[in-house]
């Protein structure tokens, strides 16, 4: 579980919005027996930047899942240099 969590977070950091959400997260429906179960928040005591930003929150905290369309994103998922 922990390995998959770090993998998901590292993916998010490395390729920004290009990471596909592999679903089946803690707050998402089960995608099937063989689907990886990857929590989309960090459940332990956060100690790093990524863990702090992605630490699980209580139900009282509003979190918004946004997957925007980015027309100028490079084909490899990286951001183009600002002109």
């Amino acid at each position: 579980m922990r390995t998959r969590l770090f993998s998901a977070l590292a993916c998010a950091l490395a390729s920004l919005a290009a990471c596909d959400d592999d679903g089946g997260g803690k707050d998402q429906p089960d995608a099937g027996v063989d689907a990886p179960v990857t929590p989309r928040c960090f459940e332990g005591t956060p100690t790093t930047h990524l863990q702090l930003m992605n630490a699980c929150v209580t139900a009282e905290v509003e979190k918004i899942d946004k997957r925007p369309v980015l027309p100028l994103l490079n084909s490899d998922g990286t951001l183009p240099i600002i002109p």
Partner: protein
Amino acid sequence: MQQGERMRPLLLLSALGLVAIAAAPSLAAPCEDAPGTTKVYMQVGDTQEPLIKALGRALRDNTPNPITLVYITSGSCTNIDAISKDTPITANMGYIPSTAEDPAWTPAMPPIACTPVGGKVPDIANSNVFVSACNLTLPASIVELHGPVQAYVLAVPEANTTDRAITFEEAYFVFGFGTAGGIQPWVDEAQLFIRTVTKSTLLSWAFNISVPAAKWKGTRLDKSSEVVTGLGSSLSPAKALGILGVEVYDANRNKLNSLAFRARGQQYAYFPDSTATSTDKKNVRDGHYTVWSPTIYMAKGTAGAVTNPAAAYVINLIAGKTALPAPAFNPVSLIVGAGIIPDCAMRVTRDQEGGDLRPYAPAESCTCSYEKLATNVTSCQTCTTTCATGTCRGGFCEER
């Protein structure tokens, strides 16, 4: 002409809200003639003006150690440069009347204008971004102390109830590419209300979205109030987007909405507060909302100690350090009231502008007091002297 006669027209105009600090220099009396024997001259960012006004009033009325704050607002980088080079202030400044002088004055009103005759080098300068964010370094003769945390938001007109969040990548394209970025609905560069390159609001956002300050697309404005006006009066509210200090946004929630922000590498977008309508700054304090900077206060000194005792007293009050004689007011209450977050309520910190967060444990926690002051609610246990766990401070069982 006696001082009282010189001041009378100013007081009248001030009461009518018609005097800006830097306006009408011919009417302003010398700052040296302002009431009070101990004066501290400050050059601060405009996001800190609410705190300086509230603190100025409290210090004027502070019987144990009365101090008159005389201040002017300017950009963070300009302020750092000014105190580093002993650049005198020549524009009109302002000071706060004591309760005895003007019982009706509130921080919503302008200060009383005065002229720093011959120019006045500030005793204290303030920046709301790290000094390094301005590509400056302080000389050895200047002491730097960190004060409360200042958060920044992206805001839209209240009429826009469709857009509730923005991601790091969207903000990168909106402000870095403008119309060409194609991020709907923020494709009209005339509707992007930003700040000039020396302002902390722009600099902090610049580091957090990796768009260099000089390359931002949008309408550059000198004052936060101009951003509020631009957003509030926009004829294309669905396309309007602006940057503000969170305390400025909080004071204008009736006409603006803030956007939740998803930082680089973050899974969800979060508001500075628990929700769009709450006021607890919980997500700033625990690391879920990343766009913030410590406020930096600078003064002449050596080995971390400020030379001017009155300036040291003021900075210690702002930074949450022991200030003697003990003031006759609660400085944490003033900080919370000004919409910024005392260091003692933070659980994360960082070492550079927009840099990685790391856990933080202040020596003397004030989370319970902060939540009570900011929201009027806290789940903390109350106490009078001792607690089963933690430390009894300010009437609450604090963590430490």
